[in-house]
């Protein structure tokens, strides 16, 4: 194993004039170095610690959304827009009290549809398109029905998810 000598001075430069710093100063500088190292370590561990705690809105993909209003807040024969992932959805409570949810993107030119309580149908204000309460396009330019979403009622909460 020892193909080499253990001459400590081998390959190194001669001592520099001036000598080493005094023990006290050296101790202080060592402390400084140690503190700096601790600071660096902290700046590495801090992000890791923050990373380990998941963000509030934990669901990564928009397959399911809990609506920000309670069942008791939704009147019969009314409709509300909600956010489903990055797309708008329409929650409809029929006159009979039943809940229905659809994608609120009109299948004609992507405008956002709304619920009309006079006709009890879903209407698009851009070109007068009409959908019935099954989401089927019944009048005007829309070529396809609205995508229907599933509604689950959990206590006083409304959870909307994609049709399975």
């Amino acid at each position: 194993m020892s193909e080499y000598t253990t001459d400590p001075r081998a390959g190194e430069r001669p001592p520099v004039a001036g000598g080493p710093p005094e023990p006290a100063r050296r101790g202080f500088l060592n402390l400084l170095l140690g503190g700096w190292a601790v600071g660096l370590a902290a700046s590495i561990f801090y992000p890791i610690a923050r990373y380990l705690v998941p963000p509030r809105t934990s669901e990564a993909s928009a397959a399911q959304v809990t609506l920000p209003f309670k069942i008791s807040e939704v009147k019969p024969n009314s409709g509300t827009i909600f956010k489903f992932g990055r797309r708008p959805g329409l929650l409809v409570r029929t006159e009979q009290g039943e809940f229905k949810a659809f994608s609120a993107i009109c299948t004609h030119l992507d405008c956002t549809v709304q619920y009309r309580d006079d006709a009890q149908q879903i209407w698009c204000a851009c070109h007068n398109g009409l959908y019935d309460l099954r989401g089927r396009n019944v009048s005007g330019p829309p070529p396809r029905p609205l995508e229907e979403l599933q509604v689950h009622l959990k206590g006083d909460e409304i959870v909307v998810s994609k049709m399975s």
Partner: protein
Amino acid sequence: MRSAPATALRLAAVGFGAALACGPLVRAVENGCTACHLELDGPLAEPARLFPDDVHAARGLSCHDCHGGDPGTMDMEAAMSPQKGFKAAPRDGREVVALCASCHSDPVYMRRFAPSLRIDQMAEYRSSVHGKRLFGSGDPNVATCVSCHGVHDIRAVSSPQARVYPTRIAETCAACHADAARMKPYGRATDQYEKYRRSVHADLLYRQRDVSAPTCNDCHGNHGASPPGGGAVVNVCGQCHTFFKQYFLESPHREPFESIGQCIHCHGNHDVESPTDEWIGTGSRAVCVQCHSSGDAGYAAAELIHGRIVTLNEAVERAAGLLDRAEQAGMEVAEPRFELRDANQSLVKARSLIHTLNPARVVERVDEGLAVAVKVERAGLDALAELAFRRRGLLLFLVLILGLMAGLIWKIRERRRTR
């Protein structure tokens, strides 16, 4: 073991039963008309051959229900005797119409078969160009019931085999109206069908098979077929294009366009295309400059409207592009994307509002959209700026590292010095 005569009796019974089951034999007893006519040649056999698939046959009607006579006998004299009410085939258009109308204009009769079917076709027909010519000058060339519906192979309108099924009507009309020789005496154009096939309506109907798309009868009427006439065009188009009709009637074009075809003047009648943003304004492809010239109010309005629409379109595209870039770099842009939908919606509505020819109304909608687009663009830039912010944070970290490295190198030097 049975006896030979008993077996023979059995065989005979089976044979007779089979014979009974044979259709022609049974029909021969019921319908002497078809039994004889099927045996004949050429055109005389045709009606009998075609009729089984006719919608009237499906309703249980037969030859004698239109032609009279006695179908129960095989004797030609007895079957076709005038005493039994036999009427030969109608001799001219007027007789055809009268024959069809004898049932189809009778509400009591029709209620038995199809309660929701209209019974005013005859009245409509009389008001049409075809009807007026037929009952007026006795023109034998005009279309009558059988020209469009067929004679003995009529299908229900809802059947795809019907000559008047939405995807076949245009061809049925074109059989005469695209025939240059036939239309020559009337001095009518014959390019309507060809133009229609180029239109966006035809694309929807023929390529997408959307049977709610308009074809000849949706604008011209079917039994009362006539061109809409001045002042009525906007109502015809407005059957589907509701908002555009409303805006047009509120616009300054309402009166001036009444005599020049209203919608048709800018959009065409048969070769209707999808319009682009270039149609409005003062550019080379704009329709406005056909009448308006530099200096008049219309020209200024057109220029303004075009400019604003294009501005909003570009702003929305710019914002969307920024969001794409940020998203690909790995930034969160779901919220701004959601908001950008409103800007898109404003653009769609603004384009409809063009028909008001009112710059103020268009500008109002455009400004609404622009506010959103600008906000979204800002959000996109902020997302990209966040990248730069992180850059600075990391460079700070770099300083920390370099500091520690300096410290360590000092320590190494120090150790060298002590020895």
